[in-house]
């Protein structure tokens, strides 16, 4: 799979085709609030991500990292504040000069810019691998079945699964399934890719193959990445900035080298120490 990495990189860059963005900020959270019942998961969270930037979100479970990705992907709805993606508001739309909560139609147009890979892969078990990747481009990008399948084949080859087009997800290993899921997300040509603990459900020896694919994508494209992970080595290699979360707020943010070696806050230090002991 890594025999010809340089060629791979060029092919990836061509296959993924992230459109350049005119916006200064690819993602922007403005005082975003999210509650589950009485539990406030995010309290007036502000942060932004520049186009092409790779962000890693770390923090204890329940600190709201995954919720941020799920809000961005519109799987969850914010209880307050605004989210902008690539210069467009995801949470609100403008109707006759007034700002109203975004309707389904508006959400759909902005959501196109975002893709997501899940911890549990969430492939469609009733579809073969090729169709898993080609289905959404046919119905959401208006590609013909033939075009969509050609592009899906290309992407699947680039994640090392060119031989598995006709397999069902249940016939693949976890690592292979997750690579299909990555190809499936990329097939929609998102500008932002959300990675939600994508290696947490994998057997340890399958983690590397997934992270290698992601490293390749990071190295060869301008796609903006938001990554929730406990893989500190990966976070260090790939990300431009690490945000440390606790109780729905950012405790500390810095470049990975700085944050992992000289964290300023006690909370970050305890968290990183616990993480090290675990591994």
């Amino acid at each position: 799979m890594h025999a010809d990495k340089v060629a791979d990189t060029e092919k990836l860059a061509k296959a993924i085709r992230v459109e350049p963005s005119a916006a200064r900020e690819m993602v922007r959270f403005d005082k975003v609030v999210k509650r589950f019942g009485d539990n406030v998961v995010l309290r007036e969270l502000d942060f932004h991500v520049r186009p092409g930037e790779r962000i890693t979100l770390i923090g204890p479970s329940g600190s709201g990292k995954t919720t941020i990705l799920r809000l961005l992907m519109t799987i969850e709805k914010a209880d307050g504040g605004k989210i902008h993606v690539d210069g467009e508001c995801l949470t609100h739309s403008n109707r006759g000069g007034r700002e109203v909560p975004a309707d389904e139609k508006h959400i759909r147009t902005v959501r196109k810019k975002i893709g997501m890979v899940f911890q549990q892969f969430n492939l469609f078990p009733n579809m073969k691998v090729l169709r898993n990747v080609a289905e959404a481009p046919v119905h959401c990008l208006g590609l013909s079945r033939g075009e969509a399948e050609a592009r899906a084949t290309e992407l699947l080859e680039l994640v090392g699964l060119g031989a598995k087009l006709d397999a069902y997800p249940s016939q693949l290993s976890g690592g292979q399934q997750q690579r299909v899921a990555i190809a499936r997300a990329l097939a929609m040509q998102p500008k932002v890719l959300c990675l939600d603990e994508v290696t947490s459900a994998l057997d340890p020896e399958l983690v590397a193959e997934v992270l290698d694919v992601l490293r390749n994508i990071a190295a060869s494209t301008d796609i903006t990445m938001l990554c929730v992970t406990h893989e500190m080595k990966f976070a260090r290699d790939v990300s431009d900035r690490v945000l440390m979360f606790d109780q729905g707020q950012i405790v500390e943010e810095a470049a990975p080298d700085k944050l992992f070696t000289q964290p300023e806050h006690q909370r970050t230090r305890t968290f990183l120490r616990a993480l090290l002991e675990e591994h």
Partner: protein
Amino acid sequence: MIWDWDYTWDILPDLLRGLVVTVQATLVGSVVAMVLGLVFALLRRSRATPVRVVTGAVVEFIRSTPLLVQLYFLFFVLPSLGITLSGFLAGVIGLGVHYATYTSEVYRAGIEGVPRGQWEAATALNLPTSRVWRSVILPQAIPRVLPALGNYVIAMFKETPLLSAITVLEMLAVAKGLGSQTFRYLEPLTLVGLLFLLVSLPASLTVRRLERRYAR
């Protein structure tokens, strides 16, 4: 009273013609129940509260009233409202609508059995809702509920004798007719029972096999 074989052979063709009607009513009724049940199940998940409430009330009402009363209503009351249905048509509509209330529950369970991650992945891929249903949810939900749907088809098959009450010449009505002509009920009614058994037993075994195949 001793079993009369000559009489048995005499009436068998008539009873088999009745069986054909019984099977036809079951098949048409099942199609109605499968389609309408799915419609009920989907409407009960509608985002519009009035749609959910009205559908729920209609389903509950139909399920809580006897099928025979519903058949009488369709056959005897509707004509006074200007809608005249043949016995067979009223019968299959009655059976289909009644069983749709059961199959809608089956579909509901099947739909809820599809993991939430499937919906989330569909959202992440921006698939339109109608496409999510057709490509992702129903293809996973329906195979799993086929055995349960099959059991309702068999149950419906065994309830078709009710249609004799609205002039449909299905098997039981034929047997009753023969009995009242000859005053011999032993042979016709025994044959009706056997013929029902002959169809429903293999059908049950097939459903059992389906159940085992999808039980994972």
